[in-house]
């Protein structure tokens, strides 16, 4: 778009300069019309939509149940399931598989805590809600572990970055559990024991072995020549 073209465009909103005399400018202010700014019409439309859904929820399942009954199907209470709501807490919807619930710390095969207190998760956490104090462990190959591991679930923004950052598959958010309601802020702090209490054993290789390099190299190289 050329600059000249730009200038020709008419001003539809905001002040429009009608005349300039020295430092005095006469402007015309174009205001949106009151019909658009009152939101009355929009409110009515919204209410209409709500009512429509209400009516459909109420009558549609009933009508389909009636028509099923007419067709000879047994009459039961199952039509209530078609109403788009659940009777919480008696009923619960199933969450998607990747729902991020309360954190847990996983265990190594021998039952020791997998976390090596590398500090990647507190570093990446945007809410600064992870506190780790490392200590020397008695294992000869994995020398470090957390003495204190705390997550303030009230501050957590449930972003899942801690899980992404962990090089050890030590922290996960796959419990499917909500953060519990608490009466005291301090009670929302999960500690090493409570996190491990939800823990599962992880069999992921700790120490790092990559995929077969030949497979990946052949994929990358069009000629399939892996001896670059």
């Amino acid at each position, binding site marked *: 778009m050329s600059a000249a073209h730009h200038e020709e465009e008419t001003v539809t909103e905001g002040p429009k300069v009608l005349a300039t005399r020295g430092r005095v400018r006469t402007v015309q202010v174009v205001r949106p019309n009151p019909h658009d700014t009152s939101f009355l019409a929009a409110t009515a439309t919204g209410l209409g939509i709500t009512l429509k859904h209400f009516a459909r929820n109420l009558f549609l399942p009933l009508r389909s149940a009636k028509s099923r009954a007419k067709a000879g199907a047994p009459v039961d209470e199952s039509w209530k399931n078609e109403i788009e709501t659940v009777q919480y807490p008696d009923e619960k919807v199933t969450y998607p598989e990747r729902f991020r619930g309360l954190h847990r710390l996983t265990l190594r095969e021998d039952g020791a805590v997998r976390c*090596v*207190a*590398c*500090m*990647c998760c507190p*570093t990446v956490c945007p809410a600064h809600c992870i506190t780790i104090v*490392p*200590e*020397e462990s008695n294992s*000869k*190959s*994995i*020398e*470090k572990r957390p003495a204190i591991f705390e997550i303030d679930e009230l501050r957590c923004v449930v972003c899942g970055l801690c899980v992404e950052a962990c*090089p*050890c598959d030590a922290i996960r958010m796959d419990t499917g559990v909500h953060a519990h309601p608490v009466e005291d802020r301090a009670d929302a702090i999960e500690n090493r024991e409570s996190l491990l209490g939800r823990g599962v054993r992880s069999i992921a290789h700790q*120490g*790092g072995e*990559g*995929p*077969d*390099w030949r497979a*990946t*190299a052949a994929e990358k190289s069009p000629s399939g020549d892996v001896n670059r």
Partner: protein
Amino acid sequence: MSETVTLTIDGQSVTVPKGTNVLEAARTLGLDISAFCYHPGLPVVAQCRQCLVSIEKNPKLQPSCQQVVGDGMVVHTTDPASTLARKQQLEFTLVNHPIDCPICDKAGECTLQRLYFDHDNADSRVDTPKVHKDKAVDLGPHIVLDQERCILCSRCIRTCDEVAGQHQLEFAFRGDHEELTTAPGEQLDNPYSLNTVDVCPVGALTSKDFRFTMRAWELEATPSVCNGCATGCNVEIHHKNGRAWRLVPRHNPQVNKYWMCDEGRFTYHSAREERLAAATVDGLPAGWDRALASAAKRLGVFLKDASQVGVVLSALHTNEDNFALASLAKAWGAGHVYIAGKPPVPARADGRLRVADVNPNTAGVKAIAEALGLSATPAFELGTTLPANLRALVVLGDVLPGLDAGKLRELEVISIAAHERGPVPSARVALPAADWLEVSGTITNAQGLVQRMHAAFGPPGQAIPAWEAVVRLAHATGVKLAWTHPREVFKDMTAAVAPWKELVWAREARPLALRFAGSRG
């Protein structure tokens, strides 16, 4: 300088002193050739081959750390041959490397990590099991070795040989079983041993003191000067959450080169201990106002005849603190002026960095007292010849040799100190001061160099810099001292002390987040 040599590196011409190596010449151009075993403070061994470059008219690649520059030399660092050589060399180094980064203390400041990202950043091509070696090998009182992580650069061996003058480390075995060990019958135990941890380009050597406390990238670095002795090694305070986690040396060719001693590194511990965080009157916590009023009342009686008042300057405090107190002593016309400091430790002096005088500012406080025309006596003599007319004593610092608690109680002692030790518990009034990690100021080392310290974090509780406490005490006793910033004290001080006439106050240093600092060692 004497002769210079001009050469071309990657098409850029550079002139350097004769005898410089190609790697250093490239660094002056801002070209960072990868290197492991080369350290500017150590002899060159060209052992790691990580710094290979192409030199025209030379059929083979040359290690740039060992190659001395020649006139008209044409060096290439980005040509395919040398780039590939360095990349492959790095791959060799990584063949048996355990990739322990999550538990490795060097992660975040590791040269191997940095070079991997710079050079290769590709998956490992090795599918045979790695050679395993011992982990967490205890080398001595301060250091733990991880033999798997060692890349056999020999920097630590040379550091012991050159900096401490003691041969305590060696390589044993050959090929991929080669490993670092202590020399027969030796431990890694010398007064400079922790420098090996700094120079180690990987996390093979770790300091027991720092190990597993903090990750490097969490820390912030503030430049300062070690207060462990009169050498005044330049250091970086690595701190986080209002406390220091380690001290590491900062390069200063005039003072400490690249090194510092182990004892100096540990001084940050005592800086946290027994802190005086609130003003006290008769040993009980009081607010600043009450403490100052009480001090003024007690001193006021004797200030009518100021020959009854003594002032103790401290060789452990900054020039500014001492200048403030010396100025106050002069304004009062105090009858006695002393200089306190820790007694010398002759066994420390080794002709390297460590000296017998364990006070960081002996030279400074002497120069100040002399410039202000105060005849200052060492505080050691206080105990033997307690002057008959001495009634009140204003003491800077927490060290006062020669006077025991009983004798101190006979006097009206006003303390300005960071710690509740030495004379402070016996003081009638104690005013809390900042310790050296928390002050912005200058100290003068044994060579007479006035060096600048920067505050890494704030002092605890009600503590304030000692010079400011002196200003408050001065106001309470009716003496006007108008300083509001150490820079102003410094300005008046350099005007008064002739040898420091030319000195200027350096800009405040902002702490550098180590996550932006690249690799260290």
